[in-house]
């Protein structure tokens, strides 16, 4: 066992600098609000932006000198944290997603009044939590990150507390999330019972050196851990919360909530199964494949019958979770594809919810597809951006979504999951239907009712940028693919 002295000896503040900056930044935002009581959100927006940029800067600095960091310094804090390219890439994605979410959802923060400081602080804290989750190789540490991130999200879901459905969403999310957390931590305990360690790397070491005659306890533990994480990415059959929460929570925040949890949980899941339990691949791979297949089918089929854009996006998120799990199955080779997918999908997700917030109002919970009728005429730029993002999610060639899907499918096929790839392709075909339905509504139907669509200047530019990136990465995926490949190699 490790002693406190040992723990002290390998403290590396640099290794968790981005998280520290975010946490301190959250405190700073609250302090500014208390001290200066700003009437408008301007100063807070600048502070948040600065904090995000600083965190990004620290991550980038570490990335640049990553090759020089010797293996002995890769696992600071008593081997609880790992310094590697994957973790840094997770931070990049999370920080970009956070910045985009704040920029596109700024209307919401304006409307929140004095509570905007709380909301911003919570966003920063949850980002810190999910980042910690992505860089931890210790299951308790991972759980800490998960909880820090999730609890902040529960509160954010109910931040517009004068609205009953927002409260309902928060409550549902909290209740089901707690169950999932309990399942996860119970699984952690069982894996400890099975291997005698909470450190993923040590667990792997133990399993490679010993042969378990009756791995039952360990298998149950691993299954529970996987379920706890797949809940966070809203994979079926643990997805039931997602549509209700996506619909109830304020539109300006849903994109962030969905994206951040997915990044943290997927990376944690990858670390768990591929770093910790590659030896038990034969046991977990079929279960993960089953969850993936179920997610893709349920997500696609149920998304097709939704009449609310946010619920549709929630179910499509279930399907996307299945696609990403498909990539995870191909082991260490698949992580590059998973990376690319995560990066482009979370971008599109945040962008899409940014548009939804602009069209239906940042704090409402109604976003019927019919509200988008005639958007092509009312707000052509917004409609084109939304169409691009939806087509990207659908995986149309010449968008980043196509490259992403192609990548994970190819990896999974080579890993021997041909049947799963066939299911995935069929699900993608169904998915085209519901994405196109929204686009058709936007461009081919007459506007009905009043026009509430309004979008700020910054948000408009940011959204346009996301759409452009979606197309550019569809034509020139090489730089990001190389970056992802690089991250895995480091």
């Amino acid at each position, binding site marked *: 066992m490790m002693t406190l002295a040992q723990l002290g000896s390998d403290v590396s503040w640099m290794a968790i600098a981005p998280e520290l900056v975010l946490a301190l930044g959250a405190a700073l935002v609250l302090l500014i609000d208390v001290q200066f009581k700003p009437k408008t959100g301007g100063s807070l927006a600048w502070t948040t932006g600065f904090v995000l940029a600083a965190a990004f800067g620290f991550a980038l600095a570490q990335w640049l000198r990553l090759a020089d960091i010797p293996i002995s310094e890769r696992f600071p804090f008593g081997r609880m944290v790992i310094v590697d390219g994957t973790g840094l890439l997770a931070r990049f994605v999370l920080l970009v997603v956070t910045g985009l979410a704040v920029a596109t959802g700024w209307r919401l923060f304006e409307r929140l009044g004095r509570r905007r400081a709380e909301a911003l602080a919570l966003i920063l804290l949850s980002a810190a939590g999910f980042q910690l989750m992505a860089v931890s190789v210790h299951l308790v540490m991972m759980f800490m990150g998960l909880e820090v991130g999730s609890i902040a999200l529960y509160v954010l879901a109910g931040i517009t507390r004068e609205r009953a459905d927002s409260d309902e969403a928060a409550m549902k999310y909290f209740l089901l999330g707690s169950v999932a957390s309990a399942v996860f931590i119970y699984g952690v305990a069982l894996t400890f019972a099975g291997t005698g360690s909470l450190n993923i790397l040590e667990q792997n070491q133990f399993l490679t050196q010993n042969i378990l005659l009756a791995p039952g306890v360990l*298998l149950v533990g691993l299954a529970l851990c996987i379920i706890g994480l797949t809940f966070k990415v809203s994979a079926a059959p643990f997805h039931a919360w997602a549509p209700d929460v996506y619909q109830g929570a304020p539109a300006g925040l849903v994109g962030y909530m969905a994206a951040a949890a997915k990044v943290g949980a997927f990376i944690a899941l990858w670390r768990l199964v591929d770093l910790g339990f590659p030896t038990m691949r*034969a*046991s977990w791979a*079929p*279960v993960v494949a089953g969850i993936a297949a179920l997610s893709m089918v*349920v997500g696609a089929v*149920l998304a097709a019958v939704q009449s609310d854009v946010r619920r549709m996006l929630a179910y499509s998120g279930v399907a996307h979770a299945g696609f990403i799990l498909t990539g995870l199955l191909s082991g260490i080779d698949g992580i590059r594809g998973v990376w690319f997918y995560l990066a482009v999908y979370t971008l599109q997700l945040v962008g899409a919810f940014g548009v939804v917030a602009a069209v239906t109002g940042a704090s409402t919970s109604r976003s019927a597809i019919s509200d988008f009728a005639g958007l092509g005429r009312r707000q052509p730029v917004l409609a084109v951006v939304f169409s691009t993002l939806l087509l990207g999610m659908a995986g149309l060639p010449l968008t980043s979504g196509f490259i992403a899907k192609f990548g994970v499918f190819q990896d999974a096929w080579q890993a021997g999951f041909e049947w799963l790839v066939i299911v995935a392709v069929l699900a993608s075909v169904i998915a085209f*239907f519901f994405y196109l339905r929204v686009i058709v509504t936007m461009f081919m139907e007459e506007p009905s009712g009043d026009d509430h669509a309004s979008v700020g200047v910054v948000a408009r530019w940011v959204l346009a940028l996301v759409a452009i990136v979606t197309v550019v990465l569809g034509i020139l995926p090489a730089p990001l693919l190389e970056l992802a490949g690089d991250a895995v190699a480091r």
Partner: protein
Amino acid sequence: MIELLPLVIALPLAGAVFLHFFGRRIGEPASGWIATLAIGAAFVVGLVNAVPAFTGELHHAEHVAIWDWMPAIGASLEIQWDALSVLMTLVVTGVGTLIHVFAIGYMHGDPRFSRFFTYLNLFAASMLTLVLAGNFAMLFMGWELVGLCSYLLISFWYTKPSAAAAGKKAFVVNRIGDFGFMVALMLIFLNFGTLSYGGVFERAGEVLTTGTAVAIGLLLLVGAAGKSAQVPLYVWLPDAMEGPTPVSALIHAATMVTAGVYVVSRAAAIFELAPAAGYAVATVGAVTALWAATIAIGQSDIKKVLAYSTVSQLGYMFLAAGLGGYVAAVFHLMTHAFFKALLFLGSGSVIHGMADEQDMRKMGGLRKHMPTTAATMGVATLAIAGIPPLAGFWSKDEILGVAFEGGTYGQVLWVVGLITAMLTAFYMTRQWVMVFMGEPRWDDGVHPHESPRVMTIPLVILAVLSVVGGLVNTPFRLGLEHFLHPAFEGIDLAHPSEEMSVFAILAAVSVLAGVAGIAVGYLVYNRPPARWTKFQEGFGGLWTAWEQAYRVDDIYGATIVKPGKRLADAAAFKFDLPVIDGLVNGAGWLVRTVGSKLRVVQTGLVRNYGVLFVAGVLAAVIWMVVAGGGV
């Protein structure tokens, strides 16, 4: 300086982009001059970089990488700078600049003046992409882009239904050729695993079997025949004359239509492995040369004569390339660019001066009113007729010389070439005489006048080139041959005989043929129109056939276009609508039905979600434990 080469493409491209956004504001004539400046600068950059090629220091192809797009398949933006691309670049930018200048005068007063130059610059950039490409992917990019520009420029006056239709026709016919070209590229990629010239041509001998080489060669020929308007795909080029005349000169005479000849020459290494494909190229070329020459005789539209003449001359180049006479083909490509561009610009000048009249029967006697145009076009006519020492004589004679040395089959083609040469001399003289000699037959209210300087100066420069351009490669001094040699390293080039006596005899025969053609043309058409009719009636139905271009368009319409339309209709309404749409709608219905049933699970009640969750946990845990052998 070689790293400046990308500018050759970038400058006209920048010109096009700039004019697209600001052209209207800048207006006339400044936007024309900007476009001219862009391509002129590209010419200068090309010329500076061509110096090593002239001094003989460019032994191997130089490569300038612009952007690695898909390195795995050898598809990148990469310039290959060797003698062949040097020559093509100089022709495209040089002749292109002159035509740009001419167009400033010709397009005067057009409401879409600046848009015209946008397209013209875009075309130049595309054509340069084509000739500078270092791999087949970039070549194909340029290939398609020039097709697009050609389409845009043919139908430039799109409000005229005939122009719109001509653009469409050019597009569709080219598609047929492009299909063959694409399949050829796929075959190349399949066999070599790369599309880069180096990777393909250097290893062609060891990789390709004769059968594959023939297949690739024939497919390349299909593509080349589409772009270079060879039989049977030539029908779009005469219609393309609906475009403004500078377009005809630049795209449909001097540059784009020679792309097919360029590709065949570029792929010499493949054709060398496939003599059968080479003979096919030569045969197509010879048939086209004679076929189009006979049609040219019967035309009375000043531009149609030139269009068929171009088709015929391109056939000449194919004839030479197919027999392995790549130098002869490229040589003729160059001289033809000079005199045919001159003829087109001259005809443009005539049309301009005659208030848009194109019918030669309504011209006549113009030499007094348009002396510069008459003189320069006269030079071009003599050049294309093969009168020494003008440019056309040397290049045409080299082609005929190559054919004569090409065995029995080559000598058959030589006879065809000789007849074509005589016909060419005849119809070109006929044209010149009908336009510039005799009595005026103008419509009322037409007041012919010489064109402004901006139009006549390019004519004079091209006339000079048409006179001296052939001197770069004479049997006495094989300048071009040595110049191009590095580009055809390892290729067994076909040559005319080196015996001076053979050259002298062949030259005498072909000059005789040319003079005969000129004489007949002059004697018949330098008389009142009644005498022409009598002469033409002497040919009976044959002349009508020539006049109506053998009615090939009607035949195509009946045999290909109509059945094609019927097939498309059947596919759309008998198959697509009931079968495909039915399948799609059925699948959609299925998904919706299943989805609606599944939706019941989503009650909104947390306790139900909890049950679902626990059920999922149990299922997953049991599955995992059982699968993992935990019990």
